[in-house]
């Protein structure tokens, strides 16, 4: 290889051979050690500080939900015509974040993308937490949040059935299915790792005993037997297959909340693919934002490699451009349709009173990812960190633009209104990050943040033709 490099005299990747997924060729044991270290060692000060901040924000969210519950939805800025605002924006935003996980773990698994193995576990965990964070919004967003039962089709003596024509009802099923399947998928993948942790927990003190018991229960009697592995692989494949359509369906159905309504700016057929692309876009951005921290803090640069991150950035570039295409296409169709209300809605988005939000969205979502055309920028950790944050700001604003600008000015100019979020609205938005990061921090402390067994599977020595004693450079 060195010969080739010399003759080529070009710096850059060597496409003549597969890029190793894990760098510096660690042994199986090294992998286990690195991944188990954060769980088994005492948590550092940084973790406690981070958790304190996250829990404080989480408490803020709980407080804000509490006063919304006690006084009513009037504590928010919602009004007529803007009956949906921050809570729905937050809901769609977090559901979108939750998309990366299943995409990485299921779709990339089916496509045999080995680079996914380093990040799949974390992305899946993120999915679960994001969906949990998101799920609170539609639940408590209703005027009478103590009656969620009405949203389920249960037989009752009033003989009232739910309305299966309503996209909100589809949402109930789509989101709960997605959450359930994602949780199963995540848990199934965790079983061998729980067993590893169980076996490594040898202390005789009380904490260790508790820990061992918990891991024993969670690992469901996993004994690394060949038979276990066979069943495991089969279940994992099936769940990957089941999850794959869900990746597309959830955000498609979330987009139906808007697209099925008749409002200008909502009633467009492009919404499902556009929402899915946007969801993957924001999900990947969130994974990048958090992973660059994790790989740095836990010394996992060789497991979550820069190559992996680069691949993520490529997907961000792709989906960001797709989203940009959708923005443009919406305008084109508005013009092409000849529908003056539709045309007004889009011109009003870009040049009306909420133009600032629209241009934040465009600059964050369409312009920012274009920097990833450049390899240097794509592989620069600080750049990708900042860009991914911009993407998430942009994606939040996308939902804000869609929800608010359409509702503020729809058909009858007499009912045009205005929307001002309240402190409670902001409290819920900020607090939702608290909830998400609280769960994330607990996850990285108590569960293997990288799938131990999966990473081992992509090491050189895991390959059948690998011969011991050689190949280490």
């Amino acid at each position, binding site marked *: 290889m060195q010969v080739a490099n010399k003759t080529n005299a070009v710096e850059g990747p060597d496409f003549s051979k597969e890029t190793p997924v894990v760098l510096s060729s660690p042994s199986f044991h090294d992998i286990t050690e690195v991944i188990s270290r954060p769980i088994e060692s005492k948590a550092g000060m940084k973790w406690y500080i981070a958790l304190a901040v996250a829990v404080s924000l989480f408490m803020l969210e709980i407080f804000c939900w509490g006063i919304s519950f006690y006084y009513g939805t009037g504590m928010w800025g919602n009004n*007529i015509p803007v009956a949906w605002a921050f809570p729905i924006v937050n809901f769609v935003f977090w559901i979108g974040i939750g998309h990366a996980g299943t995409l990485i773990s299921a779709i990339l698994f089916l496509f045999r993308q080995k680079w996914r193995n380093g990040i799949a576990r974390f992305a899946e965990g993120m999915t679960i937490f994001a969906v949990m964070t998101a799920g609170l919004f539609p639940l408590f967003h209703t005027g*009478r949040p103590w009656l969620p039962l009405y*949203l389920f089709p249960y037989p009752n003596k009033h003989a*009232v059935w739910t*309305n299966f024509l309503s996209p909100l009802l589809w949402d109930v099923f789509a989101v709960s299915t997605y959450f359930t399947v994602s949780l199963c998928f995540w848990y199934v993948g965790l079983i061998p790792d729980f067993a590893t942790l169980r076996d490594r927990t040898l202390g005789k003190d009380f904490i260790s005993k508790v820990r061992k018991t918990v891991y024993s229960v969670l690992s469901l009697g996993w004994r690394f037997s060949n038979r276990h592995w066979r069943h495991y692989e089969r279940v994992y494949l099936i769940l990957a297959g089941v999850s794959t359509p869900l990746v597309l369906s959830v955000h498609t159905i979330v987009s139906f909340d808007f697209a099925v309504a008749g409002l200008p700016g909502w009633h467009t057929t492009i919404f499902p693919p556009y929402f899915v692309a946007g969801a993957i876009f924001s999900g990947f951005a969130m994974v990048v934002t958090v992973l660059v921290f994790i790989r740095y803090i836990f010394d996992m640069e060789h497991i979550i490699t820069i190559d992996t991150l680069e691949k993520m950035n490529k997907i961000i570039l792709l989906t960001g451009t797709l989203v940009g295409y959708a923005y443009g296409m919406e305008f084109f169709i508005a013009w092409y349709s000849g529908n003056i209300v539709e045309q007004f809605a889009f011109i009003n988005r870009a040049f009306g009173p909420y133009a600032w939000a629209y241009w934040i969205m465009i600059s964050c979502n369409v312009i920012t990812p274009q920097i990833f055309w450049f390899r240097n920028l794509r592989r620069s950790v600080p750049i990708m960190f900042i860009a991914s944050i911009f993407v998430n700001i942009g994606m939040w604003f996308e939902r804000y633009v869609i929800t608010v600008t359409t509702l503020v000015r729809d058909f009858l*100019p*007499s009912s045009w*209104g205005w929307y001002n979020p309240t402190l409670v609205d902001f409290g819920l938005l900020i607090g939702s990050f608290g909830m998400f990061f609280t769960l994330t921090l607990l996850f990285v402390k108590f569960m293997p943040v990288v799938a131990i067994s999966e990473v081992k599977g992509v090491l050189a020595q895991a390959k059948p033709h690998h011969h011991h004693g050689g190949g280490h450079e």
Partner: protein
Amino acid sequence: MDNNLQQTQPPATQYWKSLEELAGDPAVLAGKQHEFQAGVTDDFDPQAMSGISRRKFLAVLGASAAFTLASCKAYRDQGKIVPYNKKPEEILPGTPNYYASTVTTHGEACSVLIRTREGRPVYLKGNPDHPVTQGKISSHFQASIMALYNPERVASPLKGEGGNFSPATWQEADTEIIAALKALGGKKAALVVNRVMSPTTRQVLDSLMAAYPGTSVYSYTLYNESARDSAWKKTHGGNACPPIKWHEADVVVALESDFLGAEGDIETEMRYAQRRDVMGDKPFNRLYAVEGPMSLTGMNADYRLRLRPDAQFEFAMSLLNEIKGASDAEYSLSSVAKKHGLSESVLKLLVGDLKANKGKALVYAGSRLPEAVHVVANAINDALGSTGLYHTAETPVEHIPAATPEQWDALVSDMKAGNVGVVVHLDSNPVYHFPADLGYAEALGKVGLVVSLTKEHHETAQNSKYVLPIHHDLESWNDYKVRPGIQLLQQPVIQPLHDSRQQEAALLTWIKGDSAAHNEKLYYDYLVGAWKQLHPKLNLLVDFQTFWNSALHDGFVTYSESTPGVGAFKGAALSGLKAIKPGSDMLVVLQRGFNVGDGQFADNGWLQEFPHPVTKVVWDNYAAISPATAKELGLRNDDQVEVTVGDRKVVLPVFIQPGTVDKVIAVELGYGREHAGTIGTKVGVNAGVLRSHKQQDNPWLYAATAVKASGRHHLVTTQTHHDFNIPREQDLHLKRKIIHEASYQEYAKDPNSAAFHGHHLVNITKMREYEGVKWAMAIDANKCTGCGSCVIACNLENNVPIVGPEQVDRGREMQWMRIDRYYSGTADEPVVSQQVMLCQHCDNAPCEVVCPVNATNHSPDGLNQMAYNRCVGTRYCSNNCPYKVRRFNFFDYRDRFAKALYRKDVHQLIHNPEVTVRSRGVMEKCTFCVQRIMYARQEAIKAKRDLKGSDVVVACQEVCPSDAIIFGDANDPESKVSQYRKHVTGYHVLEEFNARPNVTYVATLRNTHA
């Protein structure tokens, strides 16, 4: 256990399941006892596993469930329910009783039917038998029921010392008042009253004056027609100017007159609308409005000219010269037009119309214009030969003439000199109403004994020693006569809620000079006595009791009474006129408060929250100025402006109103009350402080200076400000086919010219068929003036909560109906379109498909209905409603508004028991008064007949003075509503959205020349 028994004893009867069993195969018999034969141990014994038997377990379960239930509390305290011990004969629970009676405001009386439920009045509707108002009622009368249940009513007599009040008794107060009246000596006593509309009250006042020499009555009305009436006296003789036969006028020129708005009444609107009826056979009238501030009349006008109010004299004189064909260099229409920038082409049309319609054309000067303009207007009408348009048979009746300014001056100086021993205010509030420079409030301090008989605490009561509670109209006996030939009766429909007395009964007690003389029947007997004297004069064939009973039943009696006709025009009136020169400075125009009246409705949440028909501002008054004037003064909306008249100042928030003439500041009166309870205190600014008692000849217009003041005050509107500078936002109501407009002249030639041309809409699915009745509504935009009576009636009928200005500002007003206002044209000369908007009860209702819980759905008779207790409040329905007519309970507004004032027990009685009071978190909207439909259906079933569309009258339709709202059965081809649905001018709002709405609108036909 049982197993063993069965095994040992052979089965008594042979039931077998298989041949093996029949044969008694031991393996099979043994297997029968084991449900899970293989792999399950036999020794499974539940009793061995737990000490609790199944029976015991169930007992414990039941007991704990019972304990849980016992510890449950009601969701909300329901209060105590006390059933009738002996049921009153006339009350059938659940069935309303109607009583004819009369309700009053300051200066007006209206014959009404009061709906009572289980003995409490809940709704007022117009008396359908009344020959003039014909069942119609204005919003002020409607909303006056709120005063009955006002939790802050004065509940018992109060004795005050320097503005601090302590409880007192009637006896204490009566004794002191009688003593003071007896001890008057040479001193005077004054009874200050609002316009007295009752002949019997007048008798009581007369006898009080007779009983206590030195006592006199001072009557006033803040919004009076003194200029009109004194001009009439000068030009035609007689006491008061008769009302107009609006239905007979072909051309109306309104000079600074808001006769369709704040200055109008029910009759005016009713009669005017008769000439705007596409279904009627009479042609449309034509309305020219020449005015300074934008008014409801100006919004409805076919032509509107902007003119400073103080230039109206010039304008009227020039018009008179033009009509007479006299040439006058000083007053010629062309020079006036040039001077004030009026459109000469419109003026030419105006003059042409007046001349062409002699006898049917009318110039009508506004109440706030000085007498001289009224004199000229009368002269024009005389020149046009239009005196036949005066309705002399309805000339207002005055029982006590209003006190003249000189009389007030004399009273106040007597008071200041200590010559007045007693001042009694009968339901009047002069401290608030009178100009400060009269010095009435200070003078009260020098009076020995000041008494206020009132329902609510107010500014004058604050300055009184005794505040004595009086009955509300619905608790009172009385009679009223405001026009010749009709005498209205008022009867109580509820026992007095508080320790209040009938105002006249209090006076009678004082006349008797004995505080023990009072009893509840005192005034009733007096009233009956008075009517016993009336009875023989009417030469009726029936005896008194029958007469009295039928009068009570009908709410009024009519008799023929001759009224003088219009006297000949006295030309001399014109020659003595003092010319009014228009100024070039700022001019303050003090307008009548549309919602709050003279301030008496300041504490009425419904009226305060009704969006002003012109500006859509709620809970406030403001300085309405033109965009150019705003620019000149450097003002934006919500800035504050300091207006100075002489040494009197007021700081007002600014509202830039398109169509206002430049250099005019229009302000409404009736706001800024200092003592008007939790709701009304300090709402808006009291512009009355700009008035001067000395400027009696022109009390509503003042030359002023205006400068920008510091600070801002946010005015809350229900419709966003219209920006005339953004082209893409212009004329959207026309571009989007929300309002369809056409020319009446074209329509008169060819009705099809006014047809709405939409695309033919095709459904790919089969539409639902409606058998039987299908409810629908039609709204005639030509008849609708935008007065808002419908909105108030809807609030009252449907228990719509009041939310307060902060919540309205957040966009959370709860009114089910609204009146949309659109501008086109320029900011200086806007053309206004109005549209009543409410739930359209669409066949393809967009709200219904998106509700996840089926809380909003369609009834078989075409109603889009709401099941409140199923609604979880996703608000998706509101989002998907293209008309945005749904309203959401973001809070429990009864708890939240004004510190839960309207949650107080006494106010709860106002709620219509037929309509659910919605909890927080549920969506609501117009139901087409489903409770009335259900009631009518019930009645139809009881009478074993089919329900007909005409059986149901919805609340908004019922009150609409101009009959612009039509409701009925769309499936009945004979019904009125079907006629409208089929009418060539009928259209649906946003037809191409294909929601298939069931509210048909009639195209706005503008009666311009083109």
